[in-house]
């Protein structure tokens, strides 16, 4: 069976997430503005088949076209690169999506029994997890981006 770590570390996971997000944005825009696929393809100067490809969740074209498309639906794409190991860790505590959307700030601290204390600022309920051997920024995903790293060993 496919493991969670295997999935999160695969190119397919990030590609499908990207394609689905683009599909959702374009679909919403066309629906809210009552624009047909034909009119939208004319606006972008592309074929109707091209728009159908996006609406089938199969967008895999040039970066320039992706930006053009984003602007056409009155959106701007934000690009952020994160360490893969950190993403796998955040996912294991159920904080990956929230961190991506910067909805919460996560504070990580350690005591000498090698536990990581994680505090979600949304509800201030601390969670204790055992984890060793990795480094993470002290504050992640929120407003307070402290430039500190905690080494666990």
């Amino acid at each position: 069976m496919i493991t969670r770590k295997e999935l999160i570390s695969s190119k397919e996971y990030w590609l499908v997430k990207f394609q689905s997000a683009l599909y959702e944005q374009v679909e919403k825009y066309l629906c809210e503005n009552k624009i047909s696929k034909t009119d939208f393809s004319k606006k972008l100067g592309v074929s109707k088949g091209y728009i159908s490809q996006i609406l089938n969740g199969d967008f895999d074209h040039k970066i320039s076209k992706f930006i053009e498309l984003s602007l056409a639906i009155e959106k701007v794409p934000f690009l952020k690169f994160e360490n893969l190991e950190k993403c796998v860790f955040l996912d294991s505590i159920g904080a990956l999506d929230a961190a991506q959307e910067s909805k919460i700030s996560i504070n990580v601290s350690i005591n000498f029994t090698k536990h990581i204390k994680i505090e979600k600022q949304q509800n201030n309920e601390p969670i204790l997890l055992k984890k060793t051997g990795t480094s993470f920024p002290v504050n992640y995903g929120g407003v307070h981006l402290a430039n500190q790293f905690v080494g666990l060993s």
Partner: protein
Amino acid sequence: MSTFVLKKLEAVVGKQLFFELVVDDNSQFDDYCEAIKGNRQYYSELLKIFTLMNQVSQLNMLPQTKFKDITPNKESVKEYEFKSKHLRVYAFHMEKTGKIVAYGGYKNTQKDDIPKFRSYKSRYLKSIQK
């Protein structure tokens, strides 16, 4: 008399839970995933299907070309198909439980696969009625 067990799919995380159907200690879907791991193209597609399951679990929108309601008329328990270029994965929805993945198949065998999926579903539903 077969025994049915629902095993949580660890790779799928979200608001809606996903399970694989285990019948008499055997999971067709697990065997299918293991068999596919040897084929690079199919393995890549399987990862995409697992990502689609995650999207559904997180209640995100998906195009019908990737995730389709295949429930027959007058059938109350909803049936769904996850699609990639060559693969098809079939699941049904149970209220208060989540989505139960019961069968994995291929595009070119879907005519045979769908009745097998419905047979698993119907046997499971009968087992929980008793």
